[in-house]
């Protein structure tokens, strides 16, 4: 992939799903051992061109996600590099035991990509939202969880996942017009978080779409003389303990931000790390409420959960002042 301004803008405009499709097209050019499996979602996953251009490398499985993970594991055991994809709820919870047994327990290596995770499809109802995926997958051994901050990071996650030693879940969040976090090429390494902005008063740890919001919130906070550090946690598991512990040494206040249930995701992961250290910082966990209360448009749900930039900044300001 070429990381020029034009491409980065295009990926942002088309969003993480279509960028995933483009990234598969790029990968197959260099790697004919790659197979992409889909549960009848080629158009939703930006894979239409891939399906038509590389019919031998595209395996249509039909709407049978449990079967898809099994077939993927079988192909992987025979030496293929395998990517599977469908909408996040069906790519994770529907076939969770197949993920546990085939990928976690047996360690057959598959990269499985959850489309439209979080609440971007809120207007379709919570059947099509995925606020639980990180929490449930985190408890399965031998599964790495990636949560790219923008479309550009999607293009970084895929090749890294294929080279990674075990199975990787890539959680795609956001819609089209996905805000740009990375304006140019950068180094991406699974498990190594990225400090996007330095600051001395508090540390914002964010993942997925919330990275862009964290950066925007930090600008508002600056006006209130709160100097925040912003860190992109693109790898939820294994979490970058080294960075979290390093941050804990200089920052007394932590904030976690995620488009995921407040239970079991990034905030929980960070709290697990800091629970074992002396003089632990206070942690404000921001995320989606543990609720299926009300479906609606993406922005509506985010706002209702206090995950719009203004609400985020306000909550952090209150938290800062209370300490």
């Amino acid at each position: 992939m070429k990381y020029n301004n034009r491409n980065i803008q295009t990926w942002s405009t088309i969003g993480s799903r279509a960028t995933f499709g483009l990234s598969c097209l790029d990968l197959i050019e260099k790697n004919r051992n790659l197979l992409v499996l889909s549960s009848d979602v080629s158009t939703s996953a930006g894979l239409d061109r891939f399906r038509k251009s590389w019919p031998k490398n595209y395996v249509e499985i039909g709407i049978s996600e449990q079967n898809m993970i099994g077939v993927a594991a079988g192909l992987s055991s025979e030496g293929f590099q395998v990517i599977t994809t469908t909408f996040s709820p069906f790519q994770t919870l529907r076939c969770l035991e197949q993920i546990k047994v085939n990928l976690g327990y047996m360690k057959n290596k598959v990269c499985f990509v959850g489309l439209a995770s979080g609440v971007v499809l809120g207007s379709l109802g919570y059947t099509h939202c995925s606020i639980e995926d990180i929490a449930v997958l985190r408890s399965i051994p031998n599964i790495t969880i990636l949560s790219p901050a923008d479309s550009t990071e999607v293009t970084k996650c895929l090749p890294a996942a294929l080279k990674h030693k075990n199975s990787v879940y890539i959680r795609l969040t956001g819609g089209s017009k996905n805000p740009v976090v990375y304006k140019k090429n950068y180094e991406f390494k699974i498990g190594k978080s990225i400090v996007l902005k330095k600051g001395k008063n508090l540390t914002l740890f964010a993942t997925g779409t919330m990275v862009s919001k964290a950066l925007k919130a930090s600008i508002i906070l600056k006006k209130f003389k709160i100097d925040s550090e912003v860190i992109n946690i693109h790898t939820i598991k294994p979490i970058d303990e080294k960075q979290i512990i390093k941050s804990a040494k200089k920052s007394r206040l932590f904030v976690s931000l995620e488009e995921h249930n407040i239970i079991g995701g990034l905030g929980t992961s960070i709290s697990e790390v800091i629970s074992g250290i002396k003089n632990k910082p206070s942690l404000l966990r921001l995320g989606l409420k543990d609720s299926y209360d009300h479906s609606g448009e993406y922005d509506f749900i985010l706002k209702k959960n206090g995950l719009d930039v203004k609400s985020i900044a306000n909550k952090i300001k209150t938290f800062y002042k209370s300490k």
Partner: protein
Amino acid sequence: MDNIEIKKFANRVRKNILFGAYSAGSHSAHIGGAMSVVDVLSAVYCLANFDSSLIGKPNRDRIILSKGHACLALYGCLIEKGVIKRSDLKNFETSKSYLFGHPVMNKKKGIEFSTGSLGMGLSLGVGVAIAARINNQNYKTYVIQGDGECNEGSVWEAAMIANQKKLNNLTVLIDRNNFQQTGTSDEILNLNNLKDKWNSFGWETQEIDGHNLDEIRQALKFDNSNRPKAIIANTIKGKGLKIAENNNNWHHTVLTEKDYEKAVSDLDEI
């Protein structure tokens, strides 16, 4: 290998199963479903392109025991094929062993996948069979399922895709012993006409006596279709252990020393 030899092979496998079950002691072992599948599984191991020298080789036929609770039948066959040692069964189901109550993937020991969670083996088999086609390899894939296992919806997902991809290098064998854990198949979840079901899913389907080696051989040999092949093998749960035959109390239980010795001596007479 002729049928008399396969019959002797199967008889030794039955003794291996009993030895494993006896070794498990109070841990208990799945005995009924292991004994019912022996003749079918023995025939597959004897007639497929499989022996100890082929372990890890790309041209070996892939044999996947999806009904993983019948693991003692699998271990019994692998012992007879010289892949694992009979003495390893002494530690069956203990922390000292690599042979557990459901198979744990161990390619060097001929165990292709970890199975036991029902309804997953056929999807793996589909993946392995598609891989053969893409790689232009001639190996065949055999998946052995239970009839109770056909309760699982994922079995039918895999059945549909195997037909869709016209996987004529894939064979599923169903150990139709008519029992599952807590009762007969008819009582628990009636499978009705299993042959019609597989046939309607697009599979080349045959129904045979799963203890008749002529019929098993004939069914395995049949290779005149561009469709995947399903063999419904009608069997007797516990076959070869007289007190266990068609007695579902032997699904998962303890084999005492007295019953073990009697059973082995009965098998010696065959």
